[in-house]
């Protein structure tokens, strides 16, 4: 009985699901990687530590997935996993951007040049 119900729901969900254009995602991934390599190669070697902390914060873009899982009308167990993920991502965003800024402030050309 349950199996039947599940299967029925499964078919419905499959029917309702939008066409899943995964090739375009692969293209996006490939192109974004090339752009990333092109941009990052030019990053000043002086700034490799701040670079790593800012990319840390950027990779916390997982926050987007976490918000959807936490906020959707899902069972509480699932939403709890999302909330933990959201907490972890948020920590990275906050600490990543703050510490990057803190480090970058320190790079000066001359004495007393506090810009």
């Amino acid at each position, binding site marked *: 009985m349950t199996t039947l119900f599940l299967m029925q729901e499964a078919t419905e969900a499959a029917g309702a699901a939008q066409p899943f254009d995964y090739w375009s995602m692969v293209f996006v991934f490939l192109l974004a990687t090339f752009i990333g390599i092109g941009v990052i190669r030019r990053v*000043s070697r002086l700034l490799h530590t701040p670079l790593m902390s800012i990319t840390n914060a950027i990779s916390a873009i997982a926050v987007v997935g976490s918000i959807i899982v*936490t906020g959707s009308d899902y069972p509480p167990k699932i939403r709890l996993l999302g909330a933990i993920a959201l907490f972890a991502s948020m920590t990275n965003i906050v600490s990543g951007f703050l510490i990057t800024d803190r480090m970058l402030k320190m790079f000066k050309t001359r004495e007393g040049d506090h810009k």
Partner: protein
Amino acid sequence: MMGSLVQGTYVVSTALFVFSLHWMNDPKTARRAVFAGVAAMLLAVAATWIQPVVVHHGWIILAIIAGFIVGVPLSLVPLTAVPQRTALSHAFGGVAAGLVGTAEYYLWWERGAGHLTTFRMTAIIAEIILGFLTFTGSLMAAGKLQEVKWIPQRPVTYRGQNVTNIGLLVIAAVIGVWVILNPTTLLAARLFPVIIGLALVFGVLLIIPIGGADMPTVISILNSYAGLSAVAMGFVLDNKLLITAGALDGSSGLILSIIMCRAMNRSFTNVLFGAFGQVAQAKQLEPGKVYRPETIEGAAQVLEQANLVVIIPGYGMAVAQAQHKVRELYDQLKKRGITVKFAIHPVAGRMPGHMNVLLAEADIPYTDLVESSDINPDMPQCDVALVVGANDVVNPVARYDKTSPIYGMPIIDADKAKTVYAIKRSTRPGFAGIDNELYFSDRTWMLFGDAKAVIGDLVKQFSDTGGIH
């Protein structure tokens, strides 16, 4: 309508992320990078939150507040602790991806098995394996860097280590493939946690054989994994913002890893599977070679006569927190019209760029921080090379001794300077357990003691004599 608004915002956010990284190419524009990054992130969060599928807000707000409560103190750590903070945030990134992947799988398993296409299942499995192995691997790395007591600092190696590790990964992959092919079965739901468990264990085993000197490479690789797990999440959720931002992070980690590997003349596989630990039984001190100690007064006199002084910092400077004393010495020398440069090796310290940040913290202008390959041609004109807590990166053995584990590694040519002063805590060999040829050169004099104390004493000599002249 709502969909277009959300996607449009994601496009703007993606562009801002690219600009953010672009502005990191120069310290002058770099602070703009942070603003662009923050703006991109705010847009992404807002655009996601306003979507109609998001109906519960309480937990979101709580989690965000908790993120601030933990995140703000984490951003205030001393700069010497930045490597472990970075490793810790890789762990957070990994666990976030792993948990979202787990949540999505069980959600669809229960509610809509039709979503569990082969493509999506592959992405989910990649996401959880990458996410959870990054989680434990990064925690281990952070523990090693923080020198947590129950995590061994020295590389741990044992027979069959690589076979065990690779075997474990293969088992996880095989189970993964089965789950991908039969995602809706009850057994798949039972096997899913097994894959998570294997990934967690694999993360630990991957880091156990890695020593401190390899940390810059390992941190970069983990950075890349954290990005790739976000990419996988994007594939799972059909979200292109996740894919682009994750790919930017992944390529950043990749490039940093390549730079680190080149700087050590090693390959990826060699770093991950060829533990530096085997180095421990490397050549011991040959008899007849002795250190020649120098007094602070003597060193100060020679430094005062110099035209060009090159300071070579290493992890020892970070450990001793000597960067501020180094800055005082820099000031004293500059006051006397002496040119002072810092020679920075890419793998000096425990993460890429570690030394630059510490010296910048001490207010040393970044224009005086020179990369090793740029300073080497000037080393023969250098009157004094002052080695502050660096070891392997100045070991001339790397140039000619094929049996040495650091053979082929590009080094800073400190031995070509007219006089070398090396500050060293004790007569024991460095982290890699290799004797440093430089210390026994006839141009080298040793200054034994804690880096901070030794440099402090040097500064005192200068400030005293400064009063007389």
